[in-house]
């Protein structure tokens, strides 16, 4: 099966600019996660969708970060305006609720953001 697709792979922007990341999960996966992984740290969950609804966004800095999954498939994560401390890899993952793999998440390769 095709994996989780993310784009772009790399992005360099200046502080105070805006940026958007895109994720296409595995077909049929109802749950979608966005994580922020700062160098040397574990992935930090930013937001979790179940179909097109938000399940958890408690760690999303809502003054500058936003995410949507309008049709319950693709998702975009936006940062506006970006700060230096937003430099990180942004990982998207998806998980099915059906079958024996309903608890295993599959990850994309991530988008490496550098804010200068």
């Amino acid at each position, binding site marked *: 099966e095709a994996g989780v697709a993310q784009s772009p792979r790399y992005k360099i922007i200046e502080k105070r600019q805006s940026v958007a990341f895109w994720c296409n999960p595995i077909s049929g996966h*109802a749950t979608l996660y966005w994580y922020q992984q700062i160098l040397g740290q*574990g992935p930090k969950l930013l937001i979790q969708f*179940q179909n097109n609804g938000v399940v958890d966004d408690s760690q999303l800095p809502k003054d500058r970060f936003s995410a949507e999954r309008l049709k319950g498939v693709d998702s975009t994560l936006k940062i506006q305006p970006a700060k230096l401390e937003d430099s990180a890899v942004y990982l998207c993952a998806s998980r099915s609720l059906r079958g024996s793999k309903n*608890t295993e998440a599959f990850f994309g*390769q991530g988008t490496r953001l550098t804010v200068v």
Partner: protein
Amino acid sequence: AQSVAQPEDQVNVAEGNPLTVKCTYSVSGNPYLFWYVQYPNRGLQFLLKYITGDNLVKGSYGFEAEFNKSQTSFHLKKPSALVSDSALYFCGSLEGAGSYQLTFGKGTKLSVIP
């Protein structure tokens, strides 16, 4: 609060020796525990999971993990390390089922020395 903890930032092991990467958990109820591996410039790859059943779980690439309820641990093991096993390893937990959160420890960097 984190549901899983990885007490070691780095583990070094000689090629051919057994390796252990430690993880402890503090999930309430029945824990769903995972190990993922991350190679440079890649996303996380699933290695194995514990849901219920046997305490010894076998996964990809010869890795296994032992669930120990009394010690609240889920250590990752491999009998004979390969240089290609050098990577970042993350222990994770899924609280509940269905649409629950998947959270991770801070990670352990494994270096296998030729």
